[in-house]
């Protein structure tokens, strides 16, 4: 199994379409704008009440979107060391309230972002970014890279199996020269293969008339449900910000 930094589940899942719900069917632009505004709002809140309100909203979103709770939990655990280090240190240095606030704040933001990420088909998300005027160079690179990551990680899986078959078990420590050499040759081989492949892929792209930008096949317009979703999140974020600025001058 390939692992992306400790969340191993998504790479395999991401190739397939996510399960269809009302949330996955929303226009990616509405989702991106709405949830990102909400995340940014969450990051500036400092009063416990407002943070709790934001957390409730994020949890409600998570429940309503019917994104697999298991996936959310797994991805949340990846961010946990940072959250714990930050809140424990605040707990000790500035007091329990600030420590608790930190846990709530980071959890709210992480949860909302994870719902967006897990509940949107990958290429939809890229197209949303593209249509929100993120530079074409970046979005095209992101799309191509993501496509290649799926290819190369399969390659890595095969190499891992081959390594295992020859009795390699991952090395013991940083002093294990043999283990590190095997790992670095694996990484080197990955790069050689990807570099060799890049040339072929370029020829292939050119054949199909590729010119620095990828035109989207899918065209969609914002429907009323999209506007409702966007409106709800913009309004909620606006309200939270206004109260925050009123409460803490």
């Amino acid at each position, binding site marked *: 199994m390939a692992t992306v930094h400790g969340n191993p589940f998504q790479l395999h899942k991401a190739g397939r379409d996510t399960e269809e719900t009302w949330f996955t069917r929303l226009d990616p632009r509405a989702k991106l704008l709405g949830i990102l505004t909400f995340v940014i709002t969450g990051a500036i809140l400092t009063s416990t009440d407002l943070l709790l309100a934001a957390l409730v909203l994020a949890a409600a979103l998570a429940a309503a979107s019917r994104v697999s709770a298991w996936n959310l939990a797994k991805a949340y655990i990846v961010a946990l060391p940072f959250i714990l280090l930050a809140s424990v240190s*605040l707990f000790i240095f500035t007091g329990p309230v600030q420590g608790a606030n930190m846990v709530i704040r980071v959890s709210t933001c992480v949860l909302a972002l994870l719902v967006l990420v897990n509940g949107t088909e990958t290429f939809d998300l890229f197209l949303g970014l593209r249509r929100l005027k993120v530079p074409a*160079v970046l979005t095209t690179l992101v799309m191509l890279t993501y496509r290649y990551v799926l290819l190369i990680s399969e390659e890595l899986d095969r190499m891992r199996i081959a390594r295992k078959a020859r009795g390699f078990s991952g090395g013991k420590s940083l002093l294990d020269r043999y283990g590190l050499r095997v790992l670095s040759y694996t990484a080197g081989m990955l790069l050689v293969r990807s570099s060799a492949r890049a040339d072929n892929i370029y020829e292939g792209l050119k054949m199909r008339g590729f010119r620095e930008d990828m035109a989207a096949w899918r065209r969609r317009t914002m429907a009323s449900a999209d506007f409702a979703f966007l409106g709800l999140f913009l309004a909620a974020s606006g309200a939270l910000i206004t109260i925050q600025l009123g409460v803490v001058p």
Partner: protein
Amino acid sequence: MHIPDGLMDPTVAAIGLIEFAAIVSVAIVVSRRSLREKDLPRVAMLSAGIFVAQMLNFPIGGGTTGHLVGGALFAIMVGPTFAIIGMTVILLIQALMFGDGGITAFGLNALNMAIIAPLVGWGVFNLMKPLVGRTGRIGQGVSVGTAAWASVFVAAAACAAEMAVSYAISGGTYGIAATVSVPAMLGFHAVIGVGEAAISAGVVTYLEHVSPETFSRRAAANPSSSGRKGVLRSTTLRASGAVLLVLALALPFYFLYAAEGRDGLEQTMEDAGVTEGAQLANSPFTYGQNYFGALFSGIIGFVAVSLAMTGIMRALDGRRAADEM
């Protein structure tokens, strides 16, 4: 090292975003022409390669594992501009596909891992190469390893500093106090860096054996540098530039800290009950009384020093060229 949303003070996050946007725009503009051509799929493929290489866990000992950052390796392979763009793409995918690293903190994450790490890695590698270049493969391994270790260590230091500044200027609402963040981040990444160094050096050695064109292709495609000495000199200059740029990126954070937080010397003096006496002489310039004053004087000072350095280097260059004629 992926900072989640909500951990950093909004001001610090905003500065991170601004710096990141500025540097990445420059990188894109500089490499736009070549990106339109064959390099686009190449950068994408290498980013994918580094992305997957980051999934390789190496053992640290005692059952724990670390993984590659790859910024130095990327920069050594294809140069800093492509590395900055490629690492940014990797981080975008990690944030948007896997929720790994936040949106408001994206600027800071990209600054640490997509800008500082490649720049430091590339700079250190190119500064060390002339020193140890004659010792052949071992020298190369040493310079790649040192560059990789430095890239991870400096990126971790930047991350720790950002957290400490967040803590100081928010009065304990955001961030992590320096007494925790600095030892934790630096200690952990000093060890992780050893793995990064060993693997990066191994990868470069492997690539030189198996597929030397991964390096030479770029060098051959770059006709502007002629003659071995000219290449060496200009690369050294540019490598120093990369290291200076990293320092410049740190300036706004430092001034934010200095303006809002307390200066170490002032704190010590207050603790000891000493007050500052009358000044012996007035400096013609002041540091400014607030954040922006301090920031601007800092930037002006930095630009002045950089210009002076470039001037001196140019002058030396010119004289040497004249001697050769």
